[in-house]
C-alpha cells in the first residue's frame, strides 16, 4: 500500500512510464557495470536521491519500503560471508568468516543495492497500470498481461473482503483463543475461496455484457511530454552508466 500510495501521489506521476522505465533499466545496468562495491553503492545512493528529491517520495517511506529487501540482503550476505564448520561430535560446530569471499560478497551487496534502488525508483513513481501498459507496448504476451490486470484489480477487492470477514468474525469473538483463531482462519479461507469463484463468474458475465470475446483491451494513456521525458531519461541513464564505468 505504501508503494501504491507513492506511485499515485509522487511528483513524476505524469512523466512518461517509458522514461521512468529507461531510467530504471539504466540504473540496473550501471549497478551491474560498477567495478567496485563503492561504485555500486554510489549508483544506489544517486538513484535514492533522485527518487526522494526528484519524485518527492518522503525519505521515511522510502526506507520503510526498502527495509524488508535490505533485511533479506543482509541475511543473504551473512550466509555468503560465513561458513559453517561442523565437527565430529553432536553440537560441535563453529561459524567462520570466509576472508577470500568478502570482496565478492561486498560486490554482490553493492550491486543488489543498486538494483534495488533502480527497481524502487520505478515502483515508487509508476502505478502498476502504467507499468502493465508499458509492458504491452513492449510486446509482452497478452495472456500474461490479462492475468496481471485481473490479479492487480482483485488484490484490492479481496483484501477488502478479507478485512470485512475478519471484522465480522472478530465481532463474534472468532479470534479470542488460538483454537478459535485457527477455526476462524479456516472459515475465512473457505469463504474467500467461494468468493473467488463467484467473483470470477461475475467478471465473466460483466465481460460478456460489454461485448468482450477474448483479450482484455484498454485504452492507452497519453503523456504530453513523452519524447522530452524519454530524451532526459536516456541522457541521465547513459551519464550514470558512463560515470560508473569511469570510477576506478
Amino acid at each position, binding site marked *: 500500500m505504501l508503494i501504491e500510495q507513492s506511485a499515485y501521489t509522487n511528483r513524476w506521476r505524469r512523466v512518461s512510464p517509458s522514461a521512468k522505465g529507461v531510467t530504471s533499466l539504466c540504473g540496473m545496468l550501471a549497478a551491474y557495470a560498477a567495478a567496485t562495491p563503492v561504485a555500486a553503492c554510489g549508483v544506489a545512493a544517486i538513484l535514492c536521491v533522485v527518487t526522494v528529491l526528484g519524485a518527492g517520495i518522503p525519505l521515511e517511506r522510502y526506507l520503510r519500503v526498502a527495509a524488508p529487501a535490505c533485511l533479506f540482503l543482509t541475511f543473504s550476505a551473512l550466509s555468503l560471508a560465513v561458513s559453517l564448520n561442523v565437527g565430529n561430535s553432536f553440537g560441535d560446530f563453529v561459524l567462520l568468516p570466509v576472508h577470500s569471499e568478502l570482496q565478492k560478497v561486498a560486490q554482490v551487496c553493492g550491486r543488489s543495492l543498486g538494483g534495488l534502488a533502480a527497481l524502487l525508483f520505478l515502483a515508487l513513481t509508476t502505478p502498476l497500470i502504467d507499468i502493465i501498459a508499458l509492458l504491452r507496448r513492449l510486446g509482452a504476451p497478452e495472456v500474461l498481461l490479462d492475468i496481471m490486470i485481473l490479479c492487480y484489480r482483485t488484490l*484490492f477487492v479481496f483484501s477488502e473482503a478479507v478485512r470485512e470477514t475478519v471484522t465480522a468474525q472478530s465481532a463474534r469473538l472468532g479470534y479470542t483463543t488460538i483454537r478459535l483463531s485457527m477455526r476462524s482462519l479456516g472459515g475465512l479461507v473457505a469463504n474467500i475461496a467461494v468468493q473467488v469463484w463467484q467473483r470470477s463468474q461475475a467478471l465473466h458475465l460483466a465481460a*460478456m*455484457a460489454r461485448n468482450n470475446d477474448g483479450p482484455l483491451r484498454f*485504452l492507452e494513456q497519453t503523456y504530453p511530454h513523452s519524447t522530452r521525458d524519454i530524451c532526459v531519461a536516456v541522457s541521465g541513464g547513459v551519464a550514470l552508466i558512463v560515470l560508473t564505468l569511469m570510477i576506478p
Partner: protein
Amino acid sequence: MIRQATKHILELKETSFRYPDGSVGLDRCSLTILRGSRTVVLGANGSGKTTLFVHLNGILRPQTGTVLYSGAPLEYSRKGLHSLRSHVGLVFQNPDSQLFSASVREDVSFGPLNLGLDVRTVRKRVEDALQAVGMVECADKPVHNLSYGQKKRVCVAGVLAMQPEVIVLDEPMAGLDVAMQKELTAILDRLHTAGLTVLIATHDIDFAYGWSDEAIVLQKGRPLSQGNAKEVLQLSEVQTELGASPIVAEIVRSLALTGIDVCANGNPPRNRAELVKAIAAQTKQESNR
C-alpha cells in the same frame, strides 16, 4: 440486426428459464418495454429481476419463448450478440464485480474497444461518458480508491461509452447514501432526456412512484402487473406483493379524505418535493379565499 423504430424497444413473449438447480428464473414471462421510457422493475428477492435483465442483454438464452429487440427476435450468433450488446447496456449491482481495470479511464474504454472502434473515437467516447456521469476529475484515480457511489458511476460510464439505446441497471441505488442516490437519479434523468430508454430494478417503491413512467412488478418469474407506474403501484395486489405502498400517494389520499385536494390541476404529486409544493399552493389558495 435491422433496427426499426417500433413502439416497444424490448419485448418478452412467453419466455421461460429455469436454473440448473431447478429454481425458476422466468416462467412464461411476457412483457414489453416502451421505447424512450423510464421503466422500473419491482419484485421480491428471487422474483426474476436479474434473470430478466441478463436475458435482455443476451447473456442467458430463454429455454422457451422469445426475446425481441426492436420487434425482431434476438439472434444468439456471435454477430447477433455483438449487435445486441452494443444497443442494450447492462450495469450490474455490485461495481466490484464488473470493473476490470484498476484505472478509471482504462475501464471505461473496455466496452468501446470491444466494439472494434478506432482509438480516437474511443478516447472521445470515454471522455464524453466520464463527463456524463461527472467523473472527469476522478479519471486518473485508481478504482480501488473510489467510493462505492463513484464506482457505480464508473460502471454507468463504462456502459454509456458503448452508446447504447437502452441502459439496464440492476438495483443501482442499493448501498448508496441519499446524496449519491440523488446524483445518480439526476444522471439517469439526463440520459433519459438524451433519448435513452432506462430500465431499472429497484426495491424502493417511493423512488419507483416518483421517477418512472412505466412499472413492471414481477412475482415468481412472471409479471403480476405492468403498465403506467402511477396506476400499477397503487393496485392493492401489487402493494400486498411488495409489502409497501408509495408514501406520497398515501398522504395525497389521506389529505383528500380531510377535504384538502392537492391534485387540483389534475396532476397528483409523485414525489416529496411535488407534494410539498402542492400543499403550499393549496394552503395559499385557501388563505386567499
